[in-house]
């Protein structure tokens, strides 16, 4: 029994017209191009922008958001969506502050407590989405309220600052030097949060692009039923995704707490929208069209550079939001319109 002749060799890359090639290039590199253009423009208008210290400031301003966004990215790979990331950051800030200030424990304990809090948030998310099968968006919305509320309750709605009054007496502890170093220290002149961000970004990149776990996560995002039937334990991987998201948020919360030097009520709130924005912008980077680590880093940088540059140009704060929106919309339209042409 013979069969059809097999032509298994790889096809040569299809011949393209110059125009569609250009569009394809623009689609892949569009967002990177806009980022580069912003860098050049800002450096030109404000020489102080293009200095090493300022680059570090920009990176540092991006680090915390970027770390949260990396977690959100992982939660998105399985088709989930972690709306509770910001609330998790806030809860971790409170918990670390309480550990050191109120219970007078060490910085290391605070780090552990923070990470455990992140895992607790993840556990609740997993219980809701994987076990109780509540849709991700609603479930993590519930978790958001829950942990935002919890962070308030454990402190009676108050911020936790060294010297605060607890039951009539001043709180015994304070932020330890080691813990504070996590926020303000440097390693070879690079701020610690930036180093942590870089390491986590590399780790998430490798995880998603070059390991079987990453492959499984994407498979679940692409077609959960096909993934299950191909032998992937979907529930476990979805739990893994939320765990990574929770740990990333916890790391971000620890760094933020160290930078703030106190447990600030509502400190985590701004991070949800920004991290989601970074992750979503990342979809358009290098034509990935799916959540990806590299894109998220670029997305976070995009926002960070934009805000920093505009501040340096002394744009009034009320114009910044608009310019941000306009740039974002411009970048997206370019990317997605060109994608269609391709």
């Amino acid at each position, binding site marked *: 029994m013979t069969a059809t002749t097999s032509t298994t060799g790889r096809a040569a890359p299809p011949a393209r017209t110059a125009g569609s090639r250009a569009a394809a290039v623009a689609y892949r590199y569009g967002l990177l191009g806009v980022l580069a253009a912003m860098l050049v423009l800002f450096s030109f208008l404000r020489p102080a922008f293009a*200095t090493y210290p300022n680059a570090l400031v920009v990176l540092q301003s991006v680090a915390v958001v970027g770390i949260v966004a990396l977690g959100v990215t992982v939660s998105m790979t399985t088709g989930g969506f972690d709306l509770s990331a910001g609330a998790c950051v806030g809860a971790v800030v409170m918990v670390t502050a309480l550990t050191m200030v109120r219970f007078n424990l060490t910085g290391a304990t605070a780090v552990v407590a923070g990470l455990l809090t992140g895992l607790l948030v993840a556990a609740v998310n997993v219980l809701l989405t994987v076990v109780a099968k509540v849709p991700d968006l609603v479930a993590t919305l519930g978790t958001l309220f829950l942990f935002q509320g919890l962070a308030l309750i454990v402190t009676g709605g108050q911020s936790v600052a*060294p010297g605060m009054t607890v039951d009539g007496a001043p709180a015994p502890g304070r*932020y330890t030097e080691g813990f504070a170093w996590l926020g303000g220290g440097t390693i070879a002149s690079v701020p610690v949060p930036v180093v942590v961000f870089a390491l986590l970004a590399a780790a998430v990149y490798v995880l998603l692009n070059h390991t079987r776990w990453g492959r499984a996560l994407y498979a679940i995002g692409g077609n959960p039923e096909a993934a299950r039937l191909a032998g992937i334990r979907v529930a476990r991987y979805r739990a893994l995704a939320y765990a990574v998201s929770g740990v990333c948020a916890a790391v971000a919360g620890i760094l933020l707490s160290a930078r703030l*030097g106190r447990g600030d009520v509502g400190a985590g*709130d*701004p991070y949800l929208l920004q991290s989601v924005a970074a992750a979503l912008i990342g979809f358009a980077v290098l034509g990935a069209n799916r959540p990806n680590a590299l894109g998220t880093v670029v997305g976070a940088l995009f926002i960070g550079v934009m805000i920093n540059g505009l501040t340096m140009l002394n744009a009034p704060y009320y114009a910044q939001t608009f310019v941000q929106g306009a740039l974002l919309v411009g970048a997206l339209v370019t990317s997605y319109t060109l994608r269609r042409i391709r």
Partner: protein
Amino acid sequence: APATSAPSPAASSAPTSASAAPSAPVPAKFAGGNVRISLVRQLSSGDYFEQWLAGAQAEAKALNVRLEVSSGDGNNDKQALNLEQAVTAKSDAIIVDHGFAQTVQPAVKKAVAAKIPLVAFDVDPGAPEAVALSQDDHAIAEQALGALKADTGGSGEVVYVYVAGFAPLDRRNETWEQFKKDNPGIKQVAQIGVVNSSTASAVADQAKAALQANPGAKAIFAPYDEFAKGAALAVKELGLAGKVKIYGADVSTADIGVMTEPDSPWVATSATDPANVGRVAVRAAALLVAGESVDRALTVPPSLITQKGLRDAGITSVEQLTRAFPGLTTPDVARVPWTAS
């Protein structure tokens, strides 16, 4: 959001000089227009902050200073980073407007190390080199509560609006706690409070629930103008005007509008003029740049503004208010010798 900061040195205000005409020549640096002052803010949206900024900008213009403004928009880490950036960019002086002591102090240290003069408003800079400017929150609460006591005769059910974690509110809260101890006739029947970008309408909904649950309430103590506006809306919507009175804090043109409305329950507010505070901050910074001596602790005292006073004088805006209440303008705090005031 309300003004926020760590406790500031409770020193009393002490004008630096007392004359009105320019008493010194304009320093060369200012004449050349090369002075850059960075204003690093914790928050920027809301009437209070807008008026504060307007005052600061007007003063900067008068002094021929370039004011570079950045805002943390409620993200305290961002404020700290903006502060570091101002140091990196070598501003001539820095004004820190609100913020949390623990968060900004590391960056303040960097500024001090870089020998950049610094004025901190409503936040403890934690460095003796810096000037700490504050408005007197205890006095604000005392004035408003004085009005409350006078109207109620020192007894009755009161609804209290408060959210912990905001330093000025916390300070005003200390006064309230003391007031309750001193006046056992005053009974706090409910405590409500929300702070978000739509504080007034959220507080209105809560106040309505609290007033429904406590029909005997005579007064609402709302020591922040957004709280007071929400409470006023609640009283109006429940048709309780005349039964429930509101004692607030802070003032803006919009607040004056609410207070002078017919049947408005908001009868008194204790406030500083935010624009004036902004002016003082810029003046203090300019003095530091010029190398003049400035008190390390400056305080701007508040005034009590009553509904009756506003109505009688026909006041509809803060500009008219400051004309009618000269106490709100404090030209002697951080007077700049080379300008007329």
